[in-house]
């Protein structure tokens, strides 16, 4: 609360349109940022649901610690590197948010939203990208490894690449690469880090039999996976529609519709594929389909017409199921991050080269129309270049960092620790204690009430017994 109202010494001046416009833009950017921040709940439960019970608890401090490290690093240097100037490689201005003048961040200057709002929005993007990295590593990575890589990723890797594509760097400025909300910048980058980590980490104990065949290690809680998917879907309206960085002109509503149409088609594509390939409707894959479609539509969301959205999304849903099954044969990716964020991220980025409508390319003042409008492969080529550039640079740096961690601190818990589970080993307690140990006052099960207890309760009545069912 402030007290301006009560203080007569302060002349109250009626705000003008000049005050109203930035407020309008800023409200939408902040709301969108808050929605994106909430996506952390999605990543938390995607990993919890796809883990075994003995490894479910550790994901909580993991998510909190990663988000926190990213918050501080992105504030300290990340935002400056990403948007603090129009250099081809990286920005320089605005460490520690030292300046909040819109001109200091040229690539974001098209919106009159305030700089702190834009900073907040860009930070939550960084946090999403970082969260994606860990999907391949659950149930065996050492907790400390998170902390080390998180610093490098949020202070260096993500900011620099995002500068190239979002911040006016070489891919955006010189080539006109189109990535409206980050199929490449956020999702492919995260998945690339995930791949580097996985290659050095290896599969979970028991994932592959002596014959090399992949075994089933089911996640312990599918309803929570469902929560994760819907929460991510919810947050994505901030993610894509917020990337307009403003509300005036109303584009953001169209982006929201495009996003939703794609996600919907993705679910159906994945369910169809799952039924064709596995003769069952895999629960997790229906969710992966939604996520893959959301990832795929992220880059095109600001560049395509409504009709293209279901096409892009459905394709993503189909691709992701195939990718998960194929990758699972050799690489142990419990949540499907490589497929849903990596493969789908590539598809989404390339999709701009196919579906971008010239009208919107012009409106955004980046790149040209896609193949289906212009018949030219130019934009498609630019998109491919961007994918290659982002993937290769992120992979190289990430592999190096994880390799260094492996050689020094160590990347993976011991086989015994892996068998006992990360919760008890890293945190001294199970994530679901009563599932694993006697608890005072709840020794396995609480003791039974004596008959007629509690007195308030009415008299016994017969309960359905199996036979009555038979």
């Amino acid at each position, binding site marked *: 609360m402030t007290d301006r109202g009560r203080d007569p010494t302060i002349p109250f001046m009626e705000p003008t349109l000049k005050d109203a416009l930035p407020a309008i833009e800023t409200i939408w950017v902040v709301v969108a940022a808050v929605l994106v921040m909430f996506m952390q709940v999605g990543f938390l439960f995607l990993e919890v649901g796809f883990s075994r019970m003995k490894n479910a608890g550790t994901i909580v401090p993991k998510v909190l610690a990663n988000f926190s490290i990213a918050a501080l690093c992105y504030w300290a240097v990340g935002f400056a590197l990403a948007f603090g100037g129009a250099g081809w490689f990286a920005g320089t201005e605005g460490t520690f948010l030292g300046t909040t003048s819109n001109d200091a961040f040229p690539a974001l200057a098209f919106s009159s939203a305030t700089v702190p709002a834009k900073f907040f929005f860009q930070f939550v993007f960084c946090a999403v990208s970082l969260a994606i990295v860990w999907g391949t590593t659950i149930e065996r990575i050492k907790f400390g490894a998170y902390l080390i890589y998180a610093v490098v990723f949020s202070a260096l890797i993500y900011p620099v690449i995002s500068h190239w594509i979002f911040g006016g760097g070489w891919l955006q400025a010189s080539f006109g690469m189109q990535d409206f909300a980050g199929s490449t910048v956020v999702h492919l980058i995260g998945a690339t880090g995930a791949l580097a980590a996985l290659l050095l980490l290896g599969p979970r104990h028991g994932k592959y039999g002596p014959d090399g065949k992949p075994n089933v290690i089911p996640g312990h809680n599918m309803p929570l996976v469902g929560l994760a998917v819907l929460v991510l879907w919810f947050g994505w309206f901030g993610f894509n529609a917020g990337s307009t960085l403003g509300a005036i002109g109303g584009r953001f509503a169209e982006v929201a519709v495009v996003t939703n149409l794609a996600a919907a088609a993705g679910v159906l594509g994945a369910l169809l594929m799952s039924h064709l390939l596995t003769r069952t409707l*895999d629960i997790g*894959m229906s969710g992966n389909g939604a996520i893959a479609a959301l990832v795929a539509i992220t880059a095109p969301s600001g560049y395509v017409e409504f009709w293209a959205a279901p096409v892009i999304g459905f394709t993503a849903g189909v691709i992701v199921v195939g990718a*998960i*099954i194929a990758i*699972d044969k050799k690489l142990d990716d419990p949540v499907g991050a490589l497929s849903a964020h990596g493969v789908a991220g590539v598809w989404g980025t390339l999709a701009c080269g196919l579906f971008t409508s010239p009208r919107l390319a012009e409106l955004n003042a980046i790149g040209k129309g896609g193949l289906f409008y212009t018949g030219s492969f130019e934009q498609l080529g630019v998109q491919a270049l961007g994918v290659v550039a982002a993937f290769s640079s992120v992979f190289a740096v990430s592999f190096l960092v994880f390799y260094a961690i492996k050689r020094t601190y160590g990347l993976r818990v011991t086989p015994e620790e892996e068998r006992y589970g990360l919760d008890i080993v890293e945190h001294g307690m199970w994530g679901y204690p009563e599932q694993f140990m006697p608890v005072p006052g709840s020794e396995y099960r609480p003791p039974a009430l004596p008959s007629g207890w509690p007195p308030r309760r009415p008299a016994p009545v*017969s309960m359905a017994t*199996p*036979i009555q069912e038979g």
Partner: protein
Amino acid sequence: MKKIEAIIRHERLQDVQDALDKLGVSGVTVSEVVGCGRQKGYTESYRGSRANISLIPKIKVESVVPSDIAERAVDAIVGAARTGEIGDGRVFVYPVEHSIRIRTGESGEESVRHEEPVGWGH
């Protein structure tokens, strides 16, 4: 006294309880087990891979009964638990040397006998 141990299907539990209750068995102890035998397991599918589960959930019913009703108790259980399908389970009978009711300290056959049915679960 004899201990009767039966491995049965979940859905037959209530019948077995009732049958034993009728015979004047003083109580039963029930636990969840999994088992394998002739009955095949089932197949699961997850993210494209498949798994075969061979250990099948069953219910184990244990009751210590006076020797004189042991045979009838076994027949009662077999009658109540049979479906004729593979997986009906087994009944085993073991010798018991002592039995003590903790509450009263009374021991021997008396401790595992009672008179009229109680109507468990009704």
